[in-house]
């Protein structure tokens, strides 16, 4: 019964997502570019790095990277915890 309900919902969702992909703005022509233009122009002066992506990752959005490092730490700790009893065999 649940499977009978799942199939139509899945088909409707697929149609919605495909039509959204067809109706989106043309590929390669973004509308609003102010934030990224600012970062591209000023990344070299403000952080001194040639690589703008690295300056975004570690400087402009450092909090993002901090949270992501926390997620990595938590996941590794979780794996070691779940599989703890196989380590010392």
């Amino acid at each position: 019964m649940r499977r009978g309900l799942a199939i139509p919902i899945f088909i409707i969702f697929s149609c919605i997502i495909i039509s959204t992909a067809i109706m989106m703005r043309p590929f390669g022509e973004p509308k609003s570019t102010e934030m990224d233009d600012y970062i591209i122009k000023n990344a070299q002066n403000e952080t001194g790095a040639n690589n703008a992506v690295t300056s975004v990752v570690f400087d402009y959005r450092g909090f993002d990277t901090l949270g992501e490092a926390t997620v990595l730490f938590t996941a590794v700790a979780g794996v070691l915890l779940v599989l703890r009893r196989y380590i010392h065999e």
Partner: protein
Amino acid sequence: MSEPSKIVKTIASIIFPPTMVFGIYVILHGHLTPGGGFQGGAVVASAITLLLVAFGTAEIARRLKESHLSVIESIGALGFISLALLGLTATFFYNFLAGSGFIFGRIPPFGSNPGDMNTAGTLPLMNISVGLKVIAGLFAVVLVLAFVARSKGGGKR
């Protein structure tokens, strides 16, 4: 499980040093070329995983305990946090080394340039700490999964 053949061991020992050097290059040049701490850490972790596959889990586990890996990961995380805290004179994650003339403190000329290692302030140091963290984290996961694969049958409930 049978022992891997001599060909596998020889090729692994030949390929291991260039892979390691490439990973460390990707980490250290993260502020100049495509790459950074995450990508280079993944490359180095895959180099150690190659040794794990070729020489067997027991050989690697005798030399590299998983407690050492958690120490390395903690060093990386603490370095990252303390670099962020050192910029607290202005804000959290302030790049206090950029443009100061100290280590990594030069500002490159605007536009296309050949790339100077001695630039970008705290970013290379953060790349190194994140690289250590990713190496230790990914390899700890791979090592533990290898332990699970080695354990006999797993019949206990």
